[in-house]
């Protein structure tokens, strides 16, 4: 290990520019991927905020006993798709309508609006099928007059989310592939620059593991440094965007940021292993 570290330091000292270039290339490849990631998480957050407004409203028939409504709410609360159940009395409904309609508040008179059970769904149950199924079950109570959930709106929102997910995955994969190819090429350059050294190592009886270890360490360290640099660049870009937009956009959670740096390290490690492995098979 000590010898391998010495070899890494020697390699850096011998070609500092190539080493720095490697770190910067890794950083910019991951930075491009990071910017895409930022766009993706902000679009996802915006969609999530819209999706949170998906709500099923079941209108309760007049003169329904409070106990029956309470029992039904208890049942509905146990549905696996349901996150939150709320009862809106006719008076509350009137107050809400007046609040939402502002200048038309006078249109409604007391007793015009029915009471309702308002149901919010869990994040993974906001697709049209789940919403429809819950609405149907809620509608089966004898005292429910009508169930509304904006079927068209839910369907379109779901389509939008599906498109955003697919585009995100394809673009993400393309960005990741480009990053991996660029990083692997950079590391391959570093290996080729030391082709002579590798052949001499093999000549004097170095095992494959001995030859490989300095390259693996170098690839790993370059990956980690490139990852941190990319994170810093992404954070700076995010701050500039926030300043330009005038509001705070979402940034990576600490776990996701750590995963990004780890991805850099793994790409560096795997790129080195592949490049040296290919080279070793030839000498």
């Amino acid at each position, binding site marked *: 290990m000590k*010898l391998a570290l010495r070899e890494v330091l*020697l390699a850096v*000292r*011998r070609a500092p520019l190539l080493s720095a270039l490697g770190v910067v290339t890794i950083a910019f490849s991951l930075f491009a991927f990071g910017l895409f990631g930022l766009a993706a998480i902000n679009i996802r957050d915006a969609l999530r905020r819209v999706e949170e407004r998906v709500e099923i409203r079941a209108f309760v028939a007049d003169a329904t006993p409070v106990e029956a409504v309470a029992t039904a709410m208890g049942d509905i609360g146990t549905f696996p798709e349901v996150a939150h159940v709320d009862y809106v009395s006719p008076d509350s409904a009137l107050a809400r309508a007046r609040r939402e309609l502002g200048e038309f508040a006078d249109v409604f008179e007391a007793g015009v609006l029915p009471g309702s059970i308002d149901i919010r769904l869990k994040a993974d149950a906001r697709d049209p099928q789940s919403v429809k199924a819950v609405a149907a079950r809620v509608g089966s109570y004898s005292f429910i007059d009508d169930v509304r959930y904006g079927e068209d709106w839910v369907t379109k929102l779901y389509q939008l989310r599906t498109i955003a997910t697919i585009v995100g995955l394809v673009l993400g994969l393309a960005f990741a592939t480009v990053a991996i190819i660029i990083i692997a090429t950079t590391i391959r350059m570093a290996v080729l620059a030391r082709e*002579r*050294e590798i*052949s*001499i*190592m*093999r*000549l*004097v*009886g*170095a*095992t*494959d593991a*001995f030859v490989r270890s300095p390259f693996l360490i170098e690839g790993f360290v370059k990956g980690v440094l490139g990852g941190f640099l990319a994170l810093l660049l992404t954070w700076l870009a995010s701050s500039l965007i926030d300043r330009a937009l005038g509001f705070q956009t979402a940034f990576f959670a600490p776990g996701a940021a750590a995963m990004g740096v780890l991805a850099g390290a793994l790409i560096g490690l795997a790129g080195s292993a592949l490049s040296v492995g290919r080279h070793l098979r030839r*000498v």
Partner: protein
Amino acid sequence: MIRLVEVSKAYPRTGLALDDVSVHVAKGEFVFLTGPSGSGKSTLLKLVFMEERPTAGEVRVSGVNSATLKRGDVARLRRKLGVVFQDFRLLDDRTAHANVAFALEVTGAPPTAIPAKVNRLLTQVGLASKAQAFPRELSGGEQQRVAIARALVNDPFVLIADEPTGNLDDRATRGVFQLLREINAAGTAVVMATHNLELIRRSDYRTLEMLHGRLVADTTDPSVAARAAARRAAHDAAARAGDAGASPAAPDDTPDLRLTAQ
């Protein structure tokens, strides 16, 4: 020790480089390998240190067989043989001492034992005073001596030298050749590929001649073993007399090389 049995080697692009070669090199022998460029000398040597594998036939070196060779065997074998080349193949960013030490380090030798052994080897090749010099600060002959020290540092049973004097002037050539003779006299076999017929003529060592990938001549002589023994005895006597650096001269009656077709 080294045995090639009906060995052929073909390269995908350039075709047949070795054609049905069988040869045996015994322990402690000094063997010249000669022939024009492209005759297969380097290929034969590469087969011996297992940089290449034969297309047909078998190469056996110190218990390692090319037919059953595993990747790990190559590293183990190379620690038992030393190789030097015309272009020295030193690591340019390390001193002479570090270059020699490197060959010990890769074998996992105890770090405390390395400096003394390296110093001893550099003294043996006459470069004790230039241990801290980088290759660019050394002459061609000196660089080749560093390469020889590196090749010897793991106490190999054979030293394989591919045109070791090819890049050297006459004086350096004589010095390096003398060093190889001393190494051989101390018991290490030497297989040396060379174009330098003058060197071959001035010594009485066995000579293998290659032409178009075939072994066309071998001066194996029954007296070779006897002469090798005599040289070793003379070397031992010189060492006992406290004159280990001096080398026994070649016998005056060394005949001119006469190659005999097999």
